[in-house]
C-alpha cells in the first residue's frame, strides 16, 4: 500500500488528499477524461463502482450547478479513490463508457434524473423526464403528470448484419412485467429465431418509488424507517450499512455486544435471502417441492426474528449507537436448534439437486467471463462464481469478521450451476459464523445514547457485503441542517442486471428465465 500511495502522490501531487480510508481528488472535466485510461491501465483502477450526481442550487458555498462524484476501486491493494468534478448547466460531459463499461447505466440516470447533457447518444433509460414535467432530482422540480406514461414498444430496429431472408424468420416475444419469475417488475423483450435468442432488451423502472428524492424530506433520526424499505428480502443489511455510515462519520464506537448481535442478524438475513433465490430457481425449472423445503427454512429464520423484535419480515432492531433490544432468555438455545434443522434441510436439497443429471443439464448454461464481469461492475455471488476472489468481509472487515474463521467459495465458469453451488456453500459458512459468534458473545450494554446525529459537512460513503453484492450509500451533508442534501444508493441488483443480455445470447428461451432468477434481482433495490 505504501509504494502505491507514493506512486499516486508523485503523479498527482497536491491534488490528492487522504480522508479516513479514502483518497480524494478534485479535477476539471476535460482533465479527467484524458486521465481515464491512464488510471485504469497504469495504476490499476479497473473497477468503477458508482457515479453520484449532486445538484448544488441553493448552496451558497458552491459556484457551479452540478457536482459529479466517481468512485473507483483498485481491487488488489483495496484502494478507494473518489474523484469529484464541478460542471455548469450547459457543459456537455463525455462518457467514460469506453474505459469502464459499467458506467453506461449510471450515466443514463444522470441524464434522465438530473438533466446533465452528454455529447454521445446513450440510448433509452427507465424514465422519460417529459412525462413528469421536469428532472426529478433537481431542487426546483415541481411534478406535473398529464396522461399515461410511456413504455418501450415491443419491436427492434432492423439488424444490419443479416439479410432480408433471415429477417423474415425472426419474431419478437415480450415476457411482461407481470410474471412470477421476473418478480412482477422487469420486462424482457427478446428477438427469437425459432427457439434461439438472438437479441435481447430489458426495461426496468416499474417500481421506481422516488427513494432518493424522499430521503431529502425526512430528518436524520427518522431516515432509518425509510432505509428499511429499500430491499424487501434483506432489510437488516440496509439499516446496518446506514448505521455504520453515520457512526463512522461521527467517529463513534458502539459497544461490543451490539457489534456481535448485528453480525448474527446479518448472517441470518443472508441465509434467508439465499434460500429464496434457490427456491425461485427451482420454481423456474418446474420443481415445486424444493420451493416448499426452502420455505420451511425461511420460516425458522422468521420465527427467530419475531421473538427478538416483534415483526416477522423486518427486524427493526438497528438504531444509531447500537441495537434497540437485548437477546431474550432462551433465544440462543432456539437459534442453535433452528440451525441444526437448517442443516438437515440443506442435506435434503443437496440429495435432490447437486450432481443430479437433470439439474446439471438445465443449469450448465449462461456463462460469464471473469474479466468481463469486472468490467461490468458485478459483485457478490455472481462475481465469485466466475472465480474472482473478492468479498468485502475479507478485504475490508468490520466488527468481528477478522476474528471468526470462514471461507469464501469460488466457482469455475460463471454458469448457473456455479451460482447455485456458491450460494449453498455460503449458507453453510454463514451457519458456522453464527455459531462461533454466539458461543463467544461479549457482555455489556447494547446501545449508546447519541445526542447529535448530524454528520459533519462533506461527502461520506460506506458499504457492506449484502447477499447480492456490495451495497453502499453516498451521503452529502452540509453539517447544520436537519435534512440530508443528497443520498445515493449503490445497489448491487442495479449493476448485476447488465450481465443479462450477454449471458443469454444464442441460448434457448427456457434458459433465459432460469438465468434471470439465478442473478437474484430484487425489484425494490433495482428501481429504488
Amino acid at each position, binding site marked *: 500500500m505504501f509504494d502505491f500511495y507514493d506512486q499516486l502522490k508523485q503523479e498527482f501531487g497536491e491534488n490528492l488528499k487522504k480522508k479516513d480510508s479514502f483518497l480524494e481528488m478534485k479535477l476539471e472535466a476535460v482533465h479527467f477524461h484524458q486521465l481515464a485510461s491512464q488510471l485504469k491501465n497504469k495504476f490499476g483502477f479497473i473497477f468503477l463502482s458508482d457515479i453520484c450526481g449532486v445538484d448544488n442550487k441553493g448552496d451558497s458555498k458552491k459556484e457551479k450547478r452540478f457536482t459529479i462524484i466517481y468512485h473507483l476501486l483498485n481491487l488488489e491493494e483495496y484502494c478507494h479513490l473518489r474523484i469529484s468534478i464541478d460542471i455548469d448547466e450547459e457543459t456537455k460531459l463525455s462518457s467514460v463508457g469506453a474505459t469502464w463499461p459499467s458506467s453506461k447505466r449510471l450515466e443514463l440516470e444522470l441524464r434522465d434524473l438530473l438533466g446533465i447533457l452528454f455529447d454521445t447518444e446513450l440510448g433509452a433509460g427507465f424514465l422519460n423526464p417529459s412525462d413528469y414535467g421536469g428532472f426529478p432530482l433537481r431542487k426546483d422540480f415541481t411534478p406535473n403528470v398529464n396522461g399515461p406514461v410511456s413504455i418501450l414498444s415491443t419491436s427492434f430496429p432492423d439488424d444490419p448484419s443479416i439479410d432480408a431472408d433471415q429477417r423474415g424468420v425472426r419474431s419478437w416475444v415480450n415476457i411482461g412485467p407481470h410474471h412470477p419469475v421476473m418478480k412482477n417488475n422487469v420486462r424482457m423483450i427478446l428477438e427469437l429465431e425459432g427457439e434461439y435468442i438472438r437479441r435481447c432488451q430489458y426495461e426496468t423502472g416499474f417500481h421506481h418509488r422516488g427513494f432518493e428524492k424522499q430521503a431529502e424530506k425526512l430528518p436524520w433520526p427518522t431516515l432509518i424507517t425509510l432505509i428499511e424499505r429499500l430491499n424487501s428480502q434483506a432489510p437488516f443489511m440496509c439499516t446496518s450499512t446506514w448505521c455504520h455510515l453515520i457512526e463512522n462519520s461521527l467517529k463513534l464506537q458502539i459497544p461490543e455486544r451490539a457489534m456481535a448481535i448485528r453480525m448474527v442478524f446479518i448472517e441470518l438475513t443472508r441465509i434467508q435471502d439465499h434460500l429464496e433465490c434457490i427456491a425461485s430457481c427451482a420454481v423456474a425449472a418446474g420443481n415445486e417441492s424444493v420451493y416448499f423445503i426452502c420455505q420451511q427454512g425461511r420460516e425458522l429464520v422468521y420465527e427467530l426474528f419475531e421473538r427478538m423484535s416483534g*415483526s416477522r419480515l423486518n427486524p427493526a432492531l438497528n438504531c444509531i449507537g447500537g441495537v434497540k433490544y437485548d437477546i431474550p432468555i432462551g433465544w440462543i438455545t432456539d437459534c442453535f436448534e433452528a440451525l441444526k434443522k437448517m442443516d438437515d434441510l440443506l442435506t435434503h436439497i443437496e440429495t435432490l439437486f447437486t450432481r443430479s443429471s437433470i439439474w446439471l443439464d438445465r443449469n450448465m448454461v449462461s456463462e460469464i467471463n471473469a474479466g468481463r464481469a469486472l468490467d461490468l461492475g458485478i459483485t457478490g455471488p455472481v462475481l465469485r462464481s466466475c472465480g474472482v476472489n473478492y468479498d468485502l468481509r475479507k478485504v475490508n472487515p468490520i466488527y468481528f469478521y477478522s476474528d471468526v474463521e470462514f471461507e469464501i467459495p469460488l466457482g469455475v465458469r460463471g454458469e448457473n450451476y456455479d451460482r447455485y453451488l456458491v450460494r449453498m456453500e455460503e449458507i453453510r459458512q454463514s451457519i458456522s459464523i453464527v455459531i462461533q459468534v454466539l458461543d463467544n458473545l461479549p457482555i455489556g450494554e447494547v446501545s449508546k445514547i447519541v445526542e447529535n446525529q448530524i454528520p459533519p459537512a462533506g461527502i461520506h460513503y460506506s458499504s457492506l457485503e449484502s447477499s447480492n453484492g456490495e451495497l453502499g450509500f453516498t451521503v452529502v451533508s452540509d453539517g447544520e441542517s436537519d435534512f440530508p442534501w443528497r443520498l445515493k444508493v449503490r445497489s448491487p441488483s442495479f449493476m448485476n442486471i447488465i450481465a443479462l443480455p450477454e449471458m443469454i445470447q444464442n441460448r434457448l428461451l427456457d434458459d433465459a428465465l432460469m438465468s434471470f432468477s439465478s442473478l437474484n434481482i430484487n425489484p425494490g433495490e433495482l428501481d429504488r
Partner: protein
Amino acid sequence: MILKNEYYKAKSLTLGVMKSFLSMSYNVIRRLYGAEKITTINYPIESYLYSKNQMGLPRLVLDKKGRSLCTSCDACQKVCPTNALDISGKEGQEPEVFNLDVGKCIFCGWCADVCADKAIEMSDEHIIAAHAEESLIFSFNELKSKGRRPNPEIKNQVNSEGMEG
C-alpha cells in the same frame, strides 16, 4: 476455497432418481408418524402470540379517572414520517381533534418514542382489515384504551412452543 471437482460430474440417472425418491419418502413417513411437532396455526381458532415488542395500532393510554394523558404538544404529529396524525387543541389541555389515518400509518413507533407524557403507545392489536365503505380514520374516542390487551375474539392464543397462552 475452490469447490470439489466431483460436484460437477453427474451421477447416473437411475441412481439419482432412486436416491431422491427414498429421501422424499423417508421425510414424509417421519412426519406422518409424528417425529416432528405440527407447527401449523389454525386460524381463526388459534392465533400466534406475538412478543411484547410488537408494533400494533397506536392507542391512547388512560389514567385512573378515565382521561387521556395527552397535553396537545404536537410532538407526535411533527415526527410522523407519513403525516398520518391530525391534532388540534390548546397546549396543556386535552386535544379537541385527534385523528389517526390508519391507511397512512406504517406502524413504525416514532410517535410513542417521542411522546414526553407517555400518552400514546403501540398496542398489540394487529388484526385490522376494513371493507371499502368503512372509513379508515380513527377519532379520539376510538383510540382510547386501558393499555395492551389480547384480542377478545380469538379464543386460544398459541405461542411458538405450541402451548396455549
